[in-house]
């Protein structure tokens, strides 16, 4: 027992002390924070005002395109050359010319001149506005009542409500569930691949450096394998923990300091909207459907609040750990059977196949979380760590979850035992290229 602890210690500290660990620990959160912060930043950056000079020869759009926060339209007459000169002067950022036939053409192609390319959102805005104006104009031309069309077009939004065990209604959102499920599944997938491969490399390193025979004369091969798997698991947990801490620190710093004003703006807006919603509620249910949640992030946060956090967090921790342990044992067995990393290919494919299949069917599982397919793969131990994570936010019956967990633990014990048998023989085999047949024979050697 004491020796196992020694091995775990060595495996842990020799990795944590490496420069690559430090680099990964710092780069990881920067990347994650980047993924979280950059979209917000991008969305807020494009708030500068664009002044557009419109030269409308058709006359249809004059004073009709609505100004927005970012885009202000000015209408004028004259030659296009004179208009373009305004670009150079800097009084306008964009100049748009609409030709005289714009109303009658099948397709209207206004020209937009610029010195600095406008963002795609600006182009989109102008496009939509002009399309609407043209639409209304044509309908009016055909004397159709706009009000009727407005009334005919009503949005539909399904509210999914889960009836819980205690008979309570619980509002859920499939998209949020899917997002949560996939994120957790990806975290497990990364853990298995990143750290499972580390176990494999560690075994190969011990084999090629020929230290393994020295060590197994002091401890049992199984102890060495287990020590390595547990040691690397702790490295992985340390890294994930540091990532979470750093990511939180960085994103709070960025959102709290750098984007403070913008966030405050956003908050004010949200509060106002909530006020409006409340007013509407008191005013009468008739208006309710008109009010949409204006901010997707707010929507997501609301829905996230409804997901059963402790339940999912605990299950995640379980599948995270046991999923890794099961696969790490298989990776260790592969490492023991080869002489170099280049030879691992033939054994890697069958081991990684279940993981890849898990993701291939994950989409299907999310669309129908209670199908037979979803049930089977969320109980089968080689695929359950990923598939169950996708299913979990949608709600899984307790007995299925229990069965899946038990079968994962049994699968872990079985595959570790199997891997131990291969490992014990493999680490002392040098120079020969191992075949599947030989691997099978190793299982039956006596200790």
């Amino acid at each position: 027992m004491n020796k196992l602890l020694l091995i775990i210690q060595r495996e842990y500290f020799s990795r944590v002390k490496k420069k690559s660990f430090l680099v990964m620990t710092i780069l990881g959160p920067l990347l994650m924070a980047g993924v979280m912060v950059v979209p917000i930043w991008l969305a807020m950056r494009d708030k500068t005002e664009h002044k557009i000079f419109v030269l409308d020869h058709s006359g249809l759009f004059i004073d009709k395109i609505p100004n927005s926060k970012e885009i202000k339209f000015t209408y004028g007459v004259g030659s296009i050359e004179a208009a373009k000169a305004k670009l150079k002067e800097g009084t306008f950022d964009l100049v748009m010319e609409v030709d005289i036939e714009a109303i009658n053409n099948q397709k209207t192609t206004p020209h937009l001149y610029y010195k600095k390319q406008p963002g795609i959102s600006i182009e989109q805005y102008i496009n939509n506005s002009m399309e609407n104006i043209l639409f209304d104009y044509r309908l009016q031309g055909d004397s159709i009542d706009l009000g009727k069309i407005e009334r005919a077009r009503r949005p539909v939004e399904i509210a999914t409500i889960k009836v819980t065990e205690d008979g309570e209604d619980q509002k859920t959102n499939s998209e949020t569930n899917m997002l949560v499920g996939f994120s957790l599944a990806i975290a497990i997938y990364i853990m298995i691949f990143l750290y499972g491969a580390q176990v494999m490399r560690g075994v190969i390193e011990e084999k090629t450096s020929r230290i393994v025979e020295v060590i197994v004369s002091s401890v049992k091969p199984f102890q060495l394998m287990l020590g390595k798997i547990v040691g690397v698991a702790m490295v992985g947990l340390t890294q994930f923990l540091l990532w979470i801490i750093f990511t939180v620190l960085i994103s709070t710093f960025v959102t709290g300091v750098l984007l403070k004003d913008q966030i405050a703006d956003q908050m004010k807006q949200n509060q106002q909207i909530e006020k409006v919603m409340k007013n509407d509620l008191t005013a009468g249910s008739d208006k309710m459907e008109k009010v949409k949640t204006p901010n997707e992030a707010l929507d997501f946060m609301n829905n996230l609040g409804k997901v059963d956090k402790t339940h999912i967090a605990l299950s995640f921790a379980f599948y995270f750990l046991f999923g890794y342990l099961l696969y790490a044992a298989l990776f260790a067995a592969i490492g023991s059977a080869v002489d170099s990393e280049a030879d691992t290919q033939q054994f890697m494919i069958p081991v990684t196949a279940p993981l890849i299949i898990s993701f291939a069917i994950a989409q299907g599982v999310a669309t129908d979380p209670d199908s037979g397919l979803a049930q089977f793969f969320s109980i089968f131990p080689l695929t359950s760590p990923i598939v169950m994570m996708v299913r979990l936010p949608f709600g899984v019956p307790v007995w299925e979850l229990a069965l899946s967990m038990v079968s994962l633990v049994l699968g872990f014990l079985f595959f570790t035992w199997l891997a131990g048998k291969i490992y014990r023989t493999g680490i002392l085999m040098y120079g020969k290229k191992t075949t599947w047949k030989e691997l099978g024979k190793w299982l039956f050697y006596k200790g």
Partner: protein
Amino acid sequence: MTPILEVKNIHKNYANHVALNNVSLFVEPQKIFGLLGPNGAGKTSLIRIINQITGPDKGEVFFNGEHLAPKHVDFIGYLPEERGLYKKMAVGEQAMYLAQLKGLKKTEAKAKLQHWFKKFEIENWWDKKIEELSKGMQQKVQFIVTVLHEPKLLILDEPFSGFDPINAQLIKNEILELRDKGATIIFSTHNMGSVEELCDNIALINKAEKLLDGSVKEIRKTYKSNTFKITFKGNLMGFTNSLWAGAELIEKSSDEDVHSVTVKMLRQNKPNDLLQAVLGNAEILSFNEIIPSMNDIFISVVENKTTLNTQSAFTE
């Protein structure tokens, strides 16, 4: 006397070959025991069984009179033929780790390591990584970690490979010193010269079976073939003619008027008979009995020859 190690009727089979077939050994304490045999004979399989890396299919192993058990691991030191260290790990840290795996306490391990590093004058290697050391230097570190926990039984598989003659001598002296301090050494090698120099007893294994065992002196005596080497001045023809039917000339070579011949005594004739016969015709410069080298015995036994070919003569 209780043997430090007794191996009784060990069998070990792998999928399609027999590694050990009914092998028994008896290793006396405080002796150097040579385990000999050609490549693939089964030596490594036997050593791995003694180290409890694998187990026998049949048969028993006793350590100091007790059934071999996991607790004995700490009393055995093993230097495998296929050996190495963690390349990226510092020398001191690594040695501490391996010592603790053999059951030494941290403080104990540190003190002992400092003693050995001082003895080998390598104190400044402590913080170096293994990959920064030369092959020979790595071997020195490896030797230290093998003997550090003062094992009662030391198993050395080709211990001198990777050493230059000076360091090989250093290690040889250390091995002898360890034996004098009470350790028993099982020594596996292909270098027959070092077997004659170091080993008290040997066992020879070939094709999974033990062919020969006993003390080196006894074995060499047993394999003597009553052959003598004579160097003399005088007439070679006269010398040859004076040999009577009791001796046979096997080999001859001449350097001007100094001749050297190898003569095999036939029947029960004694060396004195031979000397008397040739004395009148030659001025004898030297007269030696040819005792077979371990090398000759090894080749002869492995190739299953009944008589010894003494061409690669070893004189004593």
